[in-house]
């Protein structure tokens, strides 16, 4: 059974959103539920071209900080809901830091941005965060869920892929350098073809290589496994970039959306000779230097071994040294797991039994069965995603006949990102929605991986299209999009749910009258704890670790599919099998147990207490205040200060630590702050 079949299941739940106040031309919930859509007669909004949209006029535009707000306010005004006022500066700084970097601000940053009431200061803060290296780490981690990225093959053996981390490093660097999204997409599909000499470009194709693949294969399974591998690529490209599940079309024409089975196989055929391979790629200089250092250290050891070897050993030691010299890292390059054509495939258990890795043609398969082959197909794209009568040849660039590069993926990537004639408009809608979801917890389309007729409808279709147009018009720059969203007034709203009009008319906040707080993801919880306790090792890039107690950011955990990190899992780390558009967020007793008894909070609380506790402070209240500010980014109010001091004193009296009762009690106080809802939620 293939894991890729799972992808078919990764539809979100069909949400019937209340489409109050439907705008002209908007598809309503009733139309959406209409069975006639199954005939394909009514095309999904997602396949319709972007319309040029003007932000609506407001009677009273005073609350609109930018054009984005006009869409939101127009709806709220129509519903008679009054938007909340802005959150406090201490809430806003925390919100912005956690949101963009996955960690709270440090002391200097708190001082630098202590008053965010002015638009100028707020804008400066956003700029400050967008140039932080941690922005790339945060963004990369979001995308890794969507890219079903892991560092092992899955299935029974779950073989390690020790060179897969280069794709993660590509993501971090690409997000940090603000690589335009269309280019980032093209490189992930065809970086090796489009820009083989460009640093990062080949690492990007790790995207294609990240899916599961069986280690054990019988001869009878060879061809099926290859089609499963192609399916994983096509399916992931579909849901990740276009919010569209091509996978169903493997066996039958799409029931709900305008994609045929033939479309599916034509997409797959772009990858006909594409294989996973280990190739030397440009890497970040830090990673290279570290690797080079390791190589040199080992060489010194081997040299010493040669010196001390006796006659019997000499030959074998010399051989080792020679082999080691061959593996010398050079030219800033290291081997990485990528995908390409015409290269040596990644070795596989079944190589000895003639596993071919790929077949010369992709056939149209009846009901997905390799024994029911139709004709061989050539690359092509669904008609619904081609505009202006353009044919496939439009995206093909002639490549010299000697080239080992067939250019099929390059052509597909151009089609995918072509906003004029190809799928680029849908691509823009999907990424705009994902970024919206990053900031607000839920996308304008609540099913980020499913923009098809089975997915949710956009709550604000005009805003979605306006943002998509804006992204395309401004060179697909994501940092600009982040800033646009974050400098709106809707992003700065207080989360207070007591607003009577909002609470009664829109309790679920579908229309953004307030900011919905949400629990931080596993990574952000752990990284924040390490950051506020001063234990965080900020070293970026390079091989990850399976050691749960390492101190680097969580993005540097090695993702082994059969050995997921328990602390991360308990806070809803995904399974990394198929693309995950939105993680679940649960509240469970095991999470509480992890905070009460687990090692992470323990050593973080210890570190904070030792460094900032009363022994190193002028007074207990002062120590409480310092720690409070550090962990929760605000000063405690009197009543909290009272409560904390009372707790610490009582615990110092009753605790079992008679050696250092106060330190021990203060540690428990730090633990409570680190376990508190205020710490665990993005406010």
């Amino acid at each position, binding site marked *: *059974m293939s894991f890729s*079949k*799972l992808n*078919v*299941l990764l539809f979100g*739940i069909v*949400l*019937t*959103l209340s489409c109050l106040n439907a705008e002209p031309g908007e598809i309503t919930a009733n139309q959406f539920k209409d069975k006639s859509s199954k005939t394909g007669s009514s095309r999904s909004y997602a396949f319709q071209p972007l319309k040029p949209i003007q932000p609506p006029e407001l009677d009273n535009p005073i609350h609109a900080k930018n054009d984005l707000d006009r869409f939101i306010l127009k709806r709220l005004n129509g519903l008679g809901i009054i938007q909340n006022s802005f959150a406090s500066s201490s809430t806003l700084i925390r919100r912005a830091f956690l949101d963009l970097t996955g960690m709270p601000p440090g002391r200097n940053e708190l001082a630098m941005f202590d008053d965010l009431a002015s638009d100028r200061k707020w804008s400066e803060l956003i700029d400050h965060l967008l140039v932080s290296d941690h922005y790339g780490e945060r963004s990369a981690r979001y995308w890794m869920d969507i890219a079903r990225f892991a560092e092992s093959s899955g299935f029974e053996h779950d073989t390690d892929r020790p060179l897969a981390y280069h794709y993660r490093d590509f993501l971090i660097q690409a997000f940090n350098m603000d690589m335009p999204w269309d280019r980032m997409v093209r490189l992930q599909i065809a970086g090796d073809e489009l820009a083989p000499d460009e640093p990062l470009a080949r690492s990007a194709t790790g995207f294609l290589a990240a899916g599961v693949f069986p280690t054990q294969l019988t001869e009878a399974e060879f061809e099926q496994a290859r089609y499963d591998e192609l399916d994983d690529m096509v399916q992931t490209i579909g849901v990740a970039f276009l919010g569209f599940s091509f996978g169903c079309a493997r066996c039958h024409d799409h029931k709900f959306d305008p994609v045929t089975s033939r479309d599916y196989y034509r997409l797959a055929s772009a990858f006909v000779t594409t294989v996973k391979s280990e190739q030397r790629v440009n890497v970040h200089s830090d990673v290279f230097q570290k690797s080079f250092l390791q190589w040199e250290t080992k060489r010194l050891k081997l040299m010493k071994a040669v010196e001390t070897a006796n006659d019997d050993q000499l030959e074998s030691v010399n051989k080792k040294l020679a082999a080691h010299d061959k593996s010398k890292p050079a030219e800033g390059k290291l081997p990485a797991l990528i995908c390409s054509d015409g290269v040596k495939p990644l070795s596989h258990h079944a190589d000895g039994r003639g596993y071919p890795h790929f077949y010369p043609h992709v056939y149209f398969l009846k*009901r997905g069965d*390799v*024994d029911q082959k139709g004709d061989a197909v050539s690359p092509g794209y669904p008609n619904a995603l081609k505009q202006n009568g353009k044919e496939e040849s439009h995206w093909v660039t002639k490549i010299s006949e000697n080239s080992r590069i067939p250019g099929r993926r390059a052509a597909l990537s151009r089609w995918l990102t072509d906003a004029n004639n190809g799928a680029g408009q849908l691509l823009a809608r999907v990424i705009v929605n994902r970024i919206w979801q990053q900031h607000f917890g839920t996308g304008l389309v*609540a099913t980020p991986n499913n923009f098809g007729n089975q997915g949710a409808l956009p709550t604000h279709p005009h805003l979605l299209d306006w943002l998509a147009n804006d992204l395309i018009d401004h060179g697909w720059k994501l940092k600009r999009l982040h800033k646009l969203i974050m400098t709106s007034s809707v992003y700065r709203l207080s989360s*207070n*749910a*007591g607003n009577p009009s909002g609470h009664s008319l829109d309790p*679920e906040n579908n229309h953004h009258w307030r900011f919905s*707080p949400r629990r931080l993801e596993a990574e952000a919880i752990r990284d924040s704890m390490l950051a506020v306790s001063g234990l965080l090792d900020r070293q970026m890039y390079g091989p990850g670790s399976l050691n749960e107690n390492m101190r680097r950011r969580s993005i540097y955990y090695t993702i082994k599919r059969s050995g997921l990190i328990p602390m991360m899992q*308990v806070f809803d780390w995904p399974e990394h099998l198929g693309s995950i558009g939105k993680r*679940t*967020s649960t*509240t*469970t*007793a*095991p999470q*509480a*147990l*992890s905070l*009460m*008894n*687990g090692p992470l909070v323990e050593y973080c609380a210890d570190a904070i207490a030792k460094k900032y506790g*009363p022994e190193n402070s*002028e*007074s*207990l*209240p002062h120590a409480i205040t310092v720690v409070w500010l550090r962990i929760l980014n605000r000063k405690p109010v009197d*009543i*909290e*200060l*009272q*409560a904390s*001091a*009372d707790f610490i*004193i*009582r*615990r110092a*009296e*009753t*605790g*079992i630590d008679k050696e*250092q*009762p*106060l*330190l021990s009690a203060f540690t*428990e106080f730090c*633990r*409570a702050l680190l*376990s508190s*809802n205020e710490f*665990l939620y993005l406010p």
Partner: protein
Amino acid sequence: MNPPFSVNTHSLTRRDMLKRCGGGAGILGLAALLSDEFGLVSLPANTFRRGASSQPLLAKPAHFQPSAKRVIWIFVNGGPSQVDTWDYKPRLEKYDGNTLEGFDKFTGFFANQVGGIMKSPFHFTPRGQCGKMVSEIFPHLGRHVDRMAFIHSGFTESNNHSPALFMMNCGQARMGLPSLGSWVSYGLGSGNRNLPGFVVMSDPKGRGLPKGHASNWSAGFLPGPFQGTWFRPNGQPIQNLERRQGVTAEDQRENLDFLAKLNRAHLENQPHEAELNARIESFELAFRMQVAAPEALDLKHEPESIRNLYGMDQQPCRHFAEQCLMARRLVERDVRFVQIYSGGNENQKSWDGHSDIKGNHSGFALETDQPIAGLLTDLENRGLLDETLVVWGGEFGRLPVAQKASKPGRDHNPHCFTTWLAGGGIKGGVSYGESDEIGHKAEVNKVHVNDLHATILHLLGLDHEKLTYTYNSRKFRLTDVGGRVIQKILL
């Protein structure tokens, strides 16, 4: 800087301590200083009272008088073959080796390995008063057929493990919906405040989790506390269950009271965030679980006679015997819903007998036959069976035709499978519905998975059409738009 505080201070009064803490007393105010309880009068009286607010897991009344209070579901993972277990088909012997005319080879998973009709490798004999024909792989369970109601006409909507598992657990063949156990927890709350209301146990022999993993006991869009609690199969069943070294229950109680105060003050500003409240509740549950869970799962004090009744003295079934005995101890403590998965993920690691159906099914039967029989006996002896529903069933059945292999197996069959129920409210010794003459498709009185769910909810006193949850403006229910209670198997 003031002198360090690492002097021996345990004899100091709190007042002394405060003084030594460097002038804090002025800020702190006398009321708090002198009060044993938290005398913070400026906050509403209920703010700091423990557990005063809404508690999602508090027991709730059923819609009507239930005949079962709790459920143990033995999930026969991978898809047990109906024709080799409970659905005796003598015609298979007659047709053995023949091609099944008109068979759609895409019924199962491996379209290219379809063989001829294959008789069961097992011998069937009549058992119990009712004379039910039972496969030889269930010598112990065969003694209990007069307590069981068999449904031979089950069918489902997917031929693939994870969607079929989601269907059987969550009512629809897709990911992200609440599971039956979560719906029951939501409908009835937990009978025991110190243990999770819904417990899941998986294979402890390293054969993995059922396909789809935690989605099978997910709360979906229901609030988080209704999610199933997965007991880790080895070591401590619940991670981080043990208190840190040197921390007593009293210490921890004080710590958690302080945390709850912080959290309730925080909640004051956002009273409508149900999730924040649930997280407060989760710490209380976790605190109680530290004591209650080890006690409930400690089999040391069970007498040898009981341990042996379940088969704990038998190597092949010891692991499952332990899980069944734990399940009894849990339902005895009013845990509402316990699910035990027999087998790991797929193929030979579960009942997914694609090859060697004989070896596969006899092996897993050997692991489970005596433990489940022991469980039924034990529940009966304690007077618990009348109010405990025991369910035996997997995500789909298997085909009457062979899956070709050197030792033939059987492929997935969504069209037909057998489930049995026993205990709380179930009529014993009856069979409901029929499959066709070779057990290929359900034929008479077909039972959809929604029907099975409706019946289980009915036994628990819940009307499946009334047990709804509004999510994003739509009322959802476990049985979606289907579900029909199978009255004929009820007492």
